[in-house]
């Protein structure tokens, strides 16, 4: 939807400030009671979902134009969705996350984007990745000498999709290989997209670049359909979200599993077991796009309908994404199965604090991104854990950049315990 389609929501925001904090039923402290990295970094009301509603209203009604500061604040949102969950504890007819992204898209359409975003989109168009400086020609380097079926040439039941970060970050090559080996070890008929492999473009969507996302996603859907795959397995939370929540609207109709779900299933079916008990004390960071945004897509095309004079609902019934069905248990079960002790942070699951890499912020807004990661590391340290474990390469990379604590991909625990 265009920004003007959100005017009703913008006017109906109750100004209650729930979007600024974790759901209050589960708040445990003042220090870690906030939920919006952009709001806490910028401080101004403008940066919170509530401010974005009001800013959007003024822009949609053409009451104000864009300045450099307005443009910066609009794009300095990680689309992490924490505001969305907290808002929907009480509100059944607002969509803060959707609106935040629509606000970005409106700015983009008006030509107001950040320099870092320009580079990312150029890279997507030219090199098929949102990681500037990386080359399409090197995309399969992560495989090393590992041999796997090219599903574009020979059909495969399961498609393994590593995503850009695993494909280009040399430190993660062995982890990506390990993930693929785990899938292969279960006896699955697995392949990759080979030369057709490219960015899922989920981050382009998060940034509000809808046209660029659609172009990339359509190409991916076409390629995936050609492989005949019935299941996609990915170790990347962003790719998982793109395939599971965004691609179905563009015609993708396959089962989408994050690697943690695949491993959990393999353990339950007796296809995977661990030989070592690692004994680490760890804390787990829920990636936004695996956790609260990892809920299944539900098709909806409808309109507002008022009942009882003024109660606004939707016709037909609209899906209400609130993080309830996100992926929280699989990673925790895996951590337990590897013999690690889990010490939970204060902000977990659907109300987890973002890692700081969402919506490309680690590329285009590094200060905000570093602030956000440091906040999470402080929270992780407060648990007394030895390390912070996560299930997304973007989160891992951002935490490593922040420093101060050992960071592991959950796959590293799995591979070590096998």
């Amino acid at each position: 939807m265009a920004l003007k389609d959100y005017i009703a929501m913008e006017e109906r925001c109750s100004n209650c400030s729930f979007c600024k904090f974790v759901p209050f039923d589960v708040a445990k402290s003042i220090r870690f009671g906030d939920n919006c990295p952009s709001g806490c970094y910028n401080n101004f009301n403008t940066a919170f979902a509530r401010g974005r509603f009001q800013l959007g209203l003024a822009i949609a009604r053409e009451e104000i134009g864009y300045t450099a500061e307005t443009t910066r604040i609009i794009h300095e949102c990680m689309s992490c969705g924490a505001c969305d969950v907290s808002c929907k504890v009480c509100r059944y007819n607002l969509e803060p996350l959707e609106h935040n992204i629509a606000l970005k898209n409106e700015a983009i359409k008006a030509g107001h984007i950040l320099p870092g975003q320009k580079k990312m989109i150029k890279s997507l168009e030219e090199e098929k990745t949102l990681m500037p400086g990386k080359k399409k020609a090197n995309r399969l380097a992560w495989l090393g000498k590992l041999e796997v079926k090219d599903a574009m040439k020979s059909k495969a039941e399961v498609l393994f999709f590593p995503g850009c970060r695993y494909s280009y970050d040399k430190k993660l090559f062995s982890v990506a290989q390990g993930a693929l080996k785990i899938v292969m070890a279960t006896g699955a008929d697995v392949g990759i997209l080979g030369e057709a492999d490219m960015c899922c473009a989920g981050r382009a969507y998060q940034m509000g670049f809808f046209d660029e996302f659609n172009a990339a996603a359509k190409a991916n859907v076409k390629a995936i359909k050609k492989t005949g795959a019935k299941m996609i397995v990915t170790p990347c939370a962003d790719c998982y979200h793109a395939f599971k929540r965004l691609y179905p609207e563009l015609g993708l109709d396959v089962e989408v599993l994050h690697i943690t779900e695949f491993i959990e299933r393999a353990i339950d079916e007796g296809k995977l077991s661990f030989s070592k008990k690692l004994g680490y004390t760890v804390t787990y960071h829920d990636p936004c796009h695996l956790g609260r945004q990892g809920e299944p897509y539900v098709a909806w095309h409808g309109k507002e309908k008022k009942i009882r004079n003024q109660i606004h609902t939707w016709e037909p019934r609209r899906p209400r994404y609130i993080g309830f069905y996100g992926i929280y248990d699989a990673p925790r079960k895996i951590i337990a199965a590897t013999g690690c002790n889990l010490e939970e942070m204060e902000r977990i699951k659907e109300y987890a604090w973002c890692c700081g890499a969402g919506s490309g912020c680690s590329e285009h807004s590094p200060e905000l991104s570093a602030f956000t990661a440091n906040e999470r590391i402080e929270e992780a340290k407060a648990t007394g854990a030895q390390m912070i474990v996560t299930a997304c390469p973007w989160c891992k990379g951002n935490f490593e950049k922040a420093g101060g604590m050992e960071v592991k991909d959950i796959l590293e625990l799995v591979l070590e315990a096998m």
Partner: protein
Amino acid sequence: MALDRAIYKAFEQVVGKRNISEDPGVLETYRCIAAQSSAHYGPYDHKTPTPQAVVMPGSTKEVQGCIRLCNKYGIHFKASTTFWSAHGYIDDDYSIQFDMHRMKNFSIDAKNMTMTVEPYVIAGTAQAEAMRYGLTCNIPGVGCSSSLVANVSGWGGPGPSSVYTGSAAENLLCFEWVLPNGDIIHTGSESAGLAGFTDEGPGPALRALLRSGGGLRGEFGICTRITFKLSPWPGPSEMTTEGHAPAYFAKLPDNIRAFTLCFPDWDRWGKAMMLLCESDIIFAGHRQFSMFGRDIKAAMLEILIDPDKQLCDIEELNKLESVQKTNKSIKIEMYVVVAGMTKEDMDWKLAALNKIVEMYDGWFDERCNQKDLEEWMQSYFIRMGHKNLNYTLCGSYEGTFGLNGGNLLYSASIAEEAFAVKREWEEKDTFIARIGGDSSMGGLSAMGGGQGPMLWEFFAHFDAHDKKSISGLRNFIDNVSTKFQREHDCPGPEFCRCNQMLRKESGYGFTQEEMNEIYKKMPDVNPYIYQFKVQKLFNPNDLTGSYYPRLDPASL
């Protein structure tokens, strides 16, 4: 009109470049949309004025520096924290908006059971901190997302647990206040350089002058710190819950229970409530979910505890026999939490509760007292974690017309008549939600020891996006308020749309001349003359708006 560059730079030097903005996009988000539920201002289809700049001081010294600049250059100012209420928004074009977001330090003195907080500490997380020490705080009815400092300085701050903890105003010990002229004052034991363990007295108190009975509603400078009393919390050191958003269920020990009490008529309900207030057995009490409306409240409870249900399910749920049965049962009800300090204490409290319910032929609702709803309600009333269910139906509501009689039994005696009037409007006028007349709510005891406030906030839900709904709501309240004022001598419009007399319909503040015209018509003009003198003393440059009603005696 932008601020003169030299003036802007002066503010920038006080708070730092990063903490001041005059960007049009930023300023836009510091305007109150008068169509939203904003402490009974309007509703109108416009916004309050745009400030010249927003400043975010990080300390009392920075607050003082900015206020002194406002005095030097004759700039009006207002401060707010979470920006819910219209009171905190500026009401003059040549104004600076203070955003107190950066001031959120706090400390707890567990031994003396006190807590000291800066403006951006909100009630929900303050309570979480207090619970670590076996303590809790009053969570004001405005909700746990609101600033405690704003509650104490700006209003009275009653809430569901005020029957046990006392209201925000009652718990205040000391405050630090930057006056409109830039002077800083400390009250209570802090004024002697000691810890904040006691308030002022004996003798005249600045506390009474600066916050008075109801609070200053954003006037008179900026309160930068308060110390207030905490109360014992007999539960775990953190609010243990299960479930995911939106339905969290408290997992608390047996000495903390939630109950839904029901009565056959308002007379017996009122008498039971008075006895509950006096009995000292209630931790929190609120007639709350009644705000959804008599016809749909049972359905709403089923929706709120089930993540798969939505507002569009109301009608289907209402067809269920079980929902109809609950709706009938909880027609005249009260929701309470009982917390025992020991097993014996809990046993006694439960026995007393049972006795009171029995005395007035009441009953415990079967459905609401089942485990899932009880656990959900525990979390609701202890933390007020879902307070903003006020907005669930339509996004906005307005309330309080005529039922705030100041005496519970009086309010109860005219309740059904008021509900019938509202139901009639719901049927004939589609601008407010049709939910069954009765949508009144209120806490069990609050300001002044209780008994009055229940039934005080009579909700009318409307759509802030729908211009007809906005004006229709206004028309409804004005008509009904006038009727009740005329027929029952209820405060009516004086209270329910009190901001009509504090901020002009345009969003701007009243001038002194305009205030003179309003307040010289009051039956007793003396309080307004007194406030005029206080204003002259503490706010000589008249920089903080018209939320402090005052009458210039020279105009009489």
